[in-house]
């Protein structure tokens, strides 16, 4: 992020937005951002207009140009900011404009750096409205104002999430399917990712796995409720992994998990019953007690960090799966869409969720995933900028 400040040149622009605009037909002036400030990550979506006329280009202030240039010509910003190029949506028509939608993320603890840069480069002179959601929109609202002279337009994270999911799904008609599932989830050798057409999406159980987890039942675009949530989420996975293995990033933790064996850490049904617990239909391979083997000193000394990382991943994932399954039963919903950055590059967890949904529901429940995992809140915020609800 640190290099970012250099790219933001001083400049001016007319800062009327959809919200502030006197005429409803007018779209918000550039730049178009949507921001989701979560407990761990800040997610930023940026719309890069590709249909800028020569006239427009002339009027465009230098500051704005440099932002565009900086964001679109880099894929990494500073040490921690990353643009997920593979998620970029090209030739998108948004608010009458054609362009590309970019997906950028950086850790929430680097937000001060981001703000300092905004201040240094007089970002506020663009008079843009920054639509932000996530808890950080509230927590850092004052910092935005005092450090960067920016006024946040705060939005509810779940509203944005639902809106974002439905929007992305609707625009992804060409290219790789936004929504997918795993075929043969119970057969590891034949478990493959398959596109899923999310027509008639309602009702839908939407499980957002960020630092924590929120579970929503969505009945229509404007009708949803938060069913429940759990504090055992992505933050727990990473937090525990850091404590148990000394790692410091999500990628590191996942990498270790992929090499580990959780059955050395967890106590399985067969460890207790010698096989299946037939009376209650519990298969021998099911985990009876997460980290249960770690009650024994001997076994604590014989496990690897990789095993511990894997067990942590399995524990958190299965728990989310089981709470989700109960919510689906209580709400009488058969389709579950998992989103959130916990699932980013985390095929292990996705397959586990797919498996758990299928196995424990005897095929009744279907686990669906979306390619843009963690960005829906930010997309929703951007949409709010363009089409205030």
């Amino acid at each position, binding site marked *: 992020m640190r290099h970012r400040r250099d790219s933001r040149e001083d400049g001016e622009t007319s800062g009327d937005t959809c919200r502030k605009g006197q005429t409803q037909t007018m779209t918000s002036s550039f730049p178009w951002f949507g921001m989701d400030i979560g407990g761990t990550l800040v997610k930023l979506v940026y719309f890069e207009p590709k249909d800028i006329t020569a006239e427009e280009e002339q009027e465009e202030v230098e500051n704005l140009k440099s932002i565009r240039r900086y964001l679109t010509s880099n894929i990494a910003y500073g040490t921690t900011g990353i643009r997920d190029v593979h998620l970029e949506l090209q030739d998108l028509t948004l608010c009458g404009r054609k362009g590309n939608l970019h997906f950028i993320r950086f850790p929430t603890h680097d937000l001060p750096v981001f703000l300092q840069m905004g201040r240094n480069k007089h970002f506020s002179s663009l008079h843009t409205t920054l639509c932000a959601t996530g808890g950080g929109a509230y927590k850092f609202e004052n910092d935005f104002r005092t450090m960067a002279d920016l006024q946040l337009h705060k939005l509810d994270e779940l509203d944005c999430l639902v809106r974002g999911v439905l929007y992305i799904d609707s625009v992804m008609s060409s290219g790789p399917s936004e929504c997918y599932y795993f075929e043969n989830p119970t057969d590891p050798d034949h478990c493959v990712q398959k596109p899923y057409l999310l027509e008639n999406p309602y009702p839908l159980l939407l499980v957002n796995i960020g630092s924590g987890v929120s579970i929503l039942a969505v009945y229509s675009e404007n009708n949803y409720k938060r069913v429940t949530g759990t504090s055992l989420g992505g933050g727990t996975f990473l937090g525990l992994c850091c*404590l148990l293995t000394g790692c410091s990033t999500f990628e590191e933790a996942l990498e270790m998990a992929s090499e580990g064996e959780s059955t050395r850490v967890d106590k399985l049904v067969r460890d207790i019953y010698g096989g299946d617990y037939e009376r209650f239909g519990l298969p021998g391979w099911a985990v009876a007690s997460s980290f*249960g083997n770690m009650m024994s000193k001997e076994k604590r000394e014989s496990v690897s960090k990789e095993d511990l990382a894997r067990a942590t991943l399995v524990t958190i994932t299965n728990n989310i799966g089981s709470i989700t399954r109960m919510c689906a039963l209580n709400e009488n919903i058969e389709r579950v869409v998992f989103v959130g950055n916990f699932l980013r590059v985390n095929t292990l967890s996705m397959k586990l969720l797919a498996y758990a949904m299928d196995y424990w529901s005897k095929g009744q429940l279907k686990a669906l995933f979306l390619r843009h995992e963690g960005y829906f809140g930010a997309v929703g915020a951007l949409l709010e900028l363009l089409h205030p609800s």
Partner: protein
Amino acid sequence: MLTALSVPLDGSSLSRCVEADWMSSGMCAHYARSVETSPTMAECGRVDSHTMDKSITLPPDEIFRNLENAKRFAIDIGGSLTKLAYYSTVKHKVAKVRSFDHSTKEAASDKLYEISVQEEVTARLHFIKFENAYIETCLDFIKDHLVNTETKVIKATGGGAHKFKVLIERKLGLKVDKEDEMSCLIKGCNFVLKNIPHEAFVYAKHADSEFRFQTTDPDIFPYLLVNIGSGVSIAKVESEDKFERIGGSSIGGGTFWGLGALLTKTKRFDELLQLASKGQHSSVDMLVKDIYGGSYGYLGLTGDLIASSFGKSATADKEFSKEDMAKSLLHMISNDIGQLACLYARLHNLSRVYFGGFFIRGHPLTMHTITYSINFFTKGEVQALFLRHEGYLGAIGAFLKGAEEDNPNQYSWGENYAGSSGLMSVSPDMYPMQRARSGTFDMLEMDRLDRQLVNLPLLQEPSSYIPDTVDLTEDAPAREYWLFCFEDALDGVVKRAVASQPDMPEAAVRAEKFRQKYRHKLQTLRYQPFAYGSLTVRSLLDTREHCLNEFNFPDPYSKIKERENDVALKYYQKVVKSLEELSWEDRQFALVRGVLAGNVFDWGAKAVSDVLESDPEFGFEQAKRQLEERPWLVDSYDQWLERLKGPPHKCALLFVDNSGVDIILGVMPLVRELLSRGTEVVLASNSGPALNDVTNGELQILTERIAAMDPVIQSGLRDDRLTLVQNGSSSPCLDLSRLDKALAMVVRERKTDLVIIEGMGRAIHTNYFATLSCESLKLAVIKNSWLADRLGGKLFSVVFKYEVPAGKPSQEAAVLTP
């Protein structure tokens, strides 16, 4: 679950060490220290430092009691604790009364009846809980002391049953027969819920009393049982035989222990909990306010709510304290379990959720976090219920499975307060003296009652009936007073106990043991009023009776009662005659005054026993003069008199109190009057002795003697219009939800429409607020100045509470109006 012995020891050296310890208190420490050169002994000495200190003063006769008569065994071996159940027979002394055969020379004796102390064999269930580290020692001990066992099989359950199978079979020579864990748990749960009053409680950390015990709802089904062992099992229980495991979770006690051990390098489960109790989870957890800066108002999520467990530890460059991590872990697991329990409860539409398993083990912090979680997720719709004996459920269930031929479910059982350790006896947070005595061994004893106990059919709302008037667990000043009062009265009780057995020289030694035991119970209750459920005057009295029985003082008042009965009988005819000379209205009042005056003769109440012991001439007439003049403290005599002018009652059930003047000169004339009015009378008296209360055995003889003098009583008996029944209890108080089944039957058959309860124990300490579905009369004299003061009266104030159930008169009116 099985492999998690937290004390890595050489089994045999430990065995010797521990055994030496309980065989002769204090010996082990020396033994271990003197041979420090031997590595195994040094190891033993180390154990000494953290386990022996708890059990070092454990008297040898306090654990594995009655083992020599053990008939049947069951064992439940969990991850850290072993629970052993055995069924044993106890020989104990019971006081019997027998009428003299007047046709023989015995009649020459001037005694009213013969009192004999006989030995009776009753069934008792023993449960003992200890750390797995002691298992080998305990098996050796059992082997050495087992004499009479008939069985060749030991029922076993729990994860460890498999692991220790060979050891058990080798040591005990019994075949291990494994039983399914879940069904044992549920069988055990049903059993305690049905047989132990105040078994279930709600935990409320900040309330006056942290433990709010539930009344025994006769209908215990359906419920959800959440068993938190290494993992979590959730079962829906619909009836005695019908249950289903509907779900579970792998995040349970094993996760807390295993993950906790990894994070904090702390090996023992209890130490982890200790750490947790000192920690601050907010330094490890990401709270809503860490993300939002405050609350998430839109969703009503407060700032202190955990958004992401361990969310703050996702960094490599910060150290976290063991305490904080342990606390965070405890919160994470408790919340998760609470949430799942709620989801299952909602799906199956159940509002009663019981929690059990080693993760809970009575730890306040765990109960608090689970309760909090349940409240949060269900917004108070579902209550988290905990069980006083949750640790024993599996062992009880396994035992019941093996004991089907004994038909344990056809009897009622009662907790024996003398032999049971009480809630949290081994908790490290507890009162040190209590801990020192029972150490790591926790016990539960249940006596098989001679009869099945059921509700009085006339209870207005059986599910909300609470026998006790004051809950001393909540009322601190009252608790203070009564604990003092019982301690103060102890010398007198001991004296009387010794005096009751003049021809037994060792009675003094036994009485001294009784004194120690009961005093210890009182001290325990001072610090843990909740140890045996709600603390009440009744439970204090019952505990005393249990302790007296324990040391073979089955009926310290037998001789006093006999003397009193004898004296009173001599006055009976005179009293009846003087009543008959009165006008109808004067007689009604005299009868009531008679009952009240008779009730002053109560050796159980200190004020009266003082007077009676110093002045034996204190007579019936003098007692009447002591009575408060009308209007009484509670006075509905006028309504009662009006009622008597109406049609006679169909049948009156009378719960009687003291022997002597009370029953003979107070109650019997009233019985006579009722019979003369055409009302049938059922006299309910105690099945076994308690203080100077008249027992059913004594009352049989007394009634016969009165019948011989009084044709009204005689014809009543002959025509079966006067019936004597036992109430099923041996308490000076009265629990209308646990009465002899036969009594309930008689009450129903006779269409009882009036219940009379007399005496402080039955009508004030208990049942003062009981609502019945028929007319009731509660009458007592307050013979305790503190209580009188509390009720706004003075010593010898009178309570005369005549009640007609709401709706009754209007029903009649409805019949009358066309």
